[in-house]
């Protein structure tokens, strides 16, 4: 077990480093840096001035070195201007250069400064992530029970009419991406065309005060796409369990069908969906980005779009660290949880 955990942890760290480096590289392409220089120092500056601005602000070093600084394993750059004033990555404006720390990167908790929102990245991500947290939580609370229920009901009696209906429903939901179901829901429930107006087509007000009226549509939109997938996995695992010897024995002994499903089949059938549900998290991120953009809910996904669209390097890097961390941690939990739930799996 210890060896397995160690290996997994090692792969995880290697993956995280590779991914953040790729994002770092792609956000720091020369044209992007040029854009930053122009937006900070004026859009009409010459190429030479761009060059000197980049030089002065520490962007001219080799990429790997700057990645190390951003990460916090290399000391931050410092530069002495002609008038003897010392500036540097770790030296706040107006602060004493001598008192500044040598390292200041993600590992030290310094996530950088957002050029678009004019706020520290860590602060933006914290507030936005908590908004998205509510969204995710509501989605899970709706999606998991509904999906498991559909899967279990469909898989209970394979080939029955109920199974056919529910399976077709799950296929239909997996065929409806968030941007399609979102558009459909807004048209049906929130537009002047049908005149139903049961819900609001925008979730902006939900950022301060979550109500059923402004929050249900975004939650339903994300949950619906995931329901089909989890339900199909649950159904597959349920049908497999229902054909097992011990279920037949229990039925032949005269235990009622209800009891067999609830007491014997369910627990074994829910092991496989557990992994699927855990692996849904990173994939929910996609849905979150789409739905937050569509419903104008200014959470993590919306921030990611803003950062990417406006070339806000530090914020985009911060967002990708969070996204990558979510993916890797859920992968780890799903692996460990699977082994823990299913004693037949041996880790080695």
């Amino acid at each position, binding site marked *: 077990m210890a060896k397995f955990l160690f290996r997994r942890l090692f792969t995880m760290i290697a*993956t995280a480093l590779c991914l953040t480096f790729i994002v770092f590289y*792609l956000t720091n392409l020369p*044209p992007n840096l040029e*854009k930053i220089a122009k937006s900070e120092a004026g859009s009409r500056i010459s190429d030479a001035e761009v060059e000197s601005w980049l030089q002065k602000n520490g962007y001219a070093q080799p990429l790997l070195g700057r990645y190390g600084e951003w990460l916090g394993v290399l000391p931050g750059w410092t530069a002495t201007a002609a008038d003897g004033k010392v500036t540097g990555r770790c030296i706040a404006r107006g602060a004493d250069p001598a008192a500044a720390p040598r390292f200041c990167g993600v590992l030290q908790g310094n996530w950088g400064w957002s050029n678009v929102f004019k706020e520290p990245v860590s602060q933006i991500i914290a507030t936005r992530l908590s908004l998205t947290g509510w969204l995710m939580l509501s989605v899970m609370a709706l999606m998991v029970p509904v999906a498991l229920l559909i899967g279990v009901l469909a898989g209970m009696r394979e080939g029955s009419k109920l199974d056919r209906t529910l399976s077709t429903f799950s296929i239909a939901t997996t065929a409806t*991406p968030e*941007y399609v179901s979102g*558009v459909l829901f*807004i048209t049906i429930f929130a537009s002047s*065309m049908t005149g139903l107006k049961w819900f609001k087509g925008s979730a902006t007000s939900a950022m301060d005060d979550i109500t059923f009226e402004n929050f249900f549509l975004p939650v339903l939109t994300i949950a619906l796409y995931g329901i089909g997938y989890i339900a199909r996995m649950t159904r597959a695992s349920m049908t497999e369990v229902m054909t097992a010897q011990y279920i037949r024995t229990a039925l032949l002994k005269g235990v009622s069908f209800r009891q067999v499903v609830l007491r014997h089949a369910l627990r074994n059938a829910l092991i496989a969906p557990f992994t699927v549900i855990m692996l849904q998290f990173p994939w929910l991120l*996609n849905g979150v980005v789409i739905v937050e953009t569509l419903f104008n809910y200014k959470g993590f996904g919306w921030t990611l779009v803003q950062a990417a669209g406006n070339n806000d390097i530090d914020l985009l890097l911060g967002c990708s660290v969070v996204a990558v961390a979510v993916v890797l941690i859920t992968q780890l939990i799903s692996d460990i949880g699977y082994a823990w739930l299913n004693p037949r799996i041996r880790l080695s």
Partner: protein
Amino acid sequence: MDALGFTQILVTMIGRFWPVWIALALTFALSISFKRRLGLYGRLFDSPIGMTGFALVMFWVFTALFANIVATHDPLAQISGMKNALPGSPLKNPVEGIYAHYLLGGDNLARDVFSRMVVGARSVLTIAPAATAFAFMAGITLGLPAGYFGGRLDTGLSFVANLVLAFPVILMFYLLVTPEIRETGPLLLGWRASIPNVMAAILFAFPILFLCILWNARFFTTPARRNLYVGITLVLGLWIYAGLAFRADPFGLWIMEPNLLNVFVSVVFVNAPTVFRIVRGITMDLKSRDYVAAAQTRGEGPWYIMLWEVLPNARGPLIVDFCLRIGYTTILLGTLGFFGLGVSPESPDWGSTINAGRKLLSIFPVPALVPAVALMSLVLGLNLLADGLREESLKD
């Protein structure tokens, strides 16, 4: 002229699709009458789910083929007075030779929603299957040896595949599908080695590589035939390859807009690792079978075993996954369009149209609703088709 009512719109629209109905009827009549001789494809017509899916998919395929006949207007033409027109609105100034109604209304730039939906099917149905096919070629070419040989090769390739899979898709698109990225990179003989171009050069080489190995593994004992097949593959393949990856087709037949290339490569890149994992898993399962052991005892080479023993036996799950993956790719392309990263702003593809229509969603929902329903029905068709195929292929 009066505006059309709901029933009239419906009837007229069904009428506009006449070539599609004829083609569909012909396909079904022929397929059903010969279904016992058509293998897995024929057995599809035994399952109602598979048939429904196939009908939906073929409806869009034929719509894409006959888009010029079905569409009522030029998808890019703006007709004055038709901005955000309601479905069935007549043209303000009817002109001879131009269809007199906007069947599904106009969008915010006064273009015909119906025609854009129909022509959009064409762009969706060329890019999505092609991108999926390239992803499959790359995934199969790398997945087979990874699963068959195992060891370091497998560890390395799996690490890279997991790396790509751990990358949030939307973030990757935002980083890869930007105009800046196309301008970065050293110039080599007039070809810019930017990231999308390099990725295209690598990913587009896989089909050629795959086919060459395929022919060589089978026919290396009869060099004349081998040379013929490999030669044909190389001539055709390198011609297309030069055109698509390097924009250097001397005849100008194979060419891809840089914007489209960027989108295409990103979609292939996202899909290939999943295919790789599937192929690798199946190969690891199949390599312990008796027929593989028999081939090994006969002294066949590893590539022959992988391509001519393992791969044909893995075709069932791969065909099913291919259908599903076209649907997934369609969704991905729609996502790209939804974020405005698509092919080009005025392109009629469904994702971009949804993106353009969503700003006025609660007042004029039709321009976004129509492509949304179109996309949903196509993906639903592909999923049902995959389900039917899976069911029928399991019956063996």
